């Protein structure tokens, strides 16, 4: 629905728009990392685009595409309240140094989303004033939404007590609700 944005981007950035696609009303433009912020700025300020509303920013770990130079795909979704159209800009980043310009000067709302993206994927945003973890804790090692992070590997801040069960096993439902207990978990020393 927003082909006009793609046309304007191609007109303005030429070969730096690597590819575009439109599917099910979603218009996507992939730009080069060098002109990432410039493209976002253009999408926001160009009167024909006028995407003043920042919707979302995150990343995709495309580690199975076989290309270490394009492992991470950072995307931003922007919407124009006046023109009622939406566009998705993407940038592809290499595995060894995933770094791209911050979009905070364009949309101030990008601040926390970039922090989340850093927290979950380890993508760094050049020029971000406060690039810390936002959801996880400072002691956490690694980035859990990367596909090479084992999803169930917890890094507890409080050491687990000994003698606890990993999972509650299913209990017998047909015993009704007598006020007694058949499942004995760890004995409490207190």
């Amino acid at each position: 629905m927003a082909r006009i944005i793609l046309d304007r981007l191609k007109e303005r950035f030429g070969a730096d728009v690597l590819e575009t696609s439109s599917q099910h009303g979603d218009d996507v433009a992939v730009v080069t990392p060098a002109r990432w912020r410039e493209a976002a700025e253009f999408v926001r300020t160009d009167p024909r685009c006028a995407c003043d509303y920042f919707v979302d920013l995150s990343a995709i770990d495309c580690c199975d595409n076989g290309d270490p130079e394009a492992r991470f795909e950072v995307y931003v979704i922007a919407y124009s309240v006046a023109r009622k159209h939406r566009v998705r800009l993407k940038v592809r980043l290499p595995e060894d140094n995933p770094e791209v310009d911050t979009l905070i000067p364009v949309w101030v709302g990008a601040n926390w989303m970039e922090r989340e993206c850093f927290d979950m994927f380890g993508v760094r945003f050049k020029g971000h004033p406060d690039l810390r973890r936002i959801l996880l804790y400072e002691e956490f090692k690694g980035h859990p939404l990367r596909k090479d992070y084992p999803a169930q590997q917890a890094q507890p801040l409080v050491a687990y007590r000994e003698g606890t069960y990993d999972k509650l096993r299913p209990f017998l439902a047909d015993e009704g609700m007598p006020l007694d207990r058949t499942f004995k978990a760890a004995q409490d020393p207190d």
Partner: protein
Amino acid sequence: MADVELETRVVGGGDAGFVTTKFEALLAWARKYSLFQYPFATACCGMEFFAAASPRYDIARFGAEAPRFSPRQADVLWVVGTISQRQAPVLKRIYDQMTEPKWVIAFGTCASCGGFYDNYATVPGIDKILPVDVMIPGCPPRPEAVLDGLMLLQQKIGDGDRTTAVVKNTQLPDGAEEKLERLYNIRMRP
């Protein structure tokens, strides 16, 4: 009051008479009917806790109607909802601040065993970090199950029992057990 009555004798003596009992039994009886609760509500189960604490279910019947938002004044820690790894130190500190005697109720499946959050972010059951007295499974548990859990805790206080107990289903509709066994490949009947 059955446990007090076991230990209690009425000794005849003129018109008035007097009663003897064991001090521990009397103390336990007094404690179990004056439970001040600290609701540590972190997730959607909190809504169900409010429902259970509302006049319709009349939790005051059990002497447990007074929530105390200072751990110093509370006897029972209700952990209501999912506990993330990042939040675990907070919960542990709240527990450590409570004065003896203190009890812990895990409200809902997430607090009991982590529920369906089997990942890096969630504590798989608060018994990993605290001694738990009663687990109330359910997603969320119905207020009736909550009251069952409270009565179970009262019974345990009366018995001086500190092992972990689990509230069981009261009943399932006809044919539900066979269906659950087939669906989840578990055994629910003896």
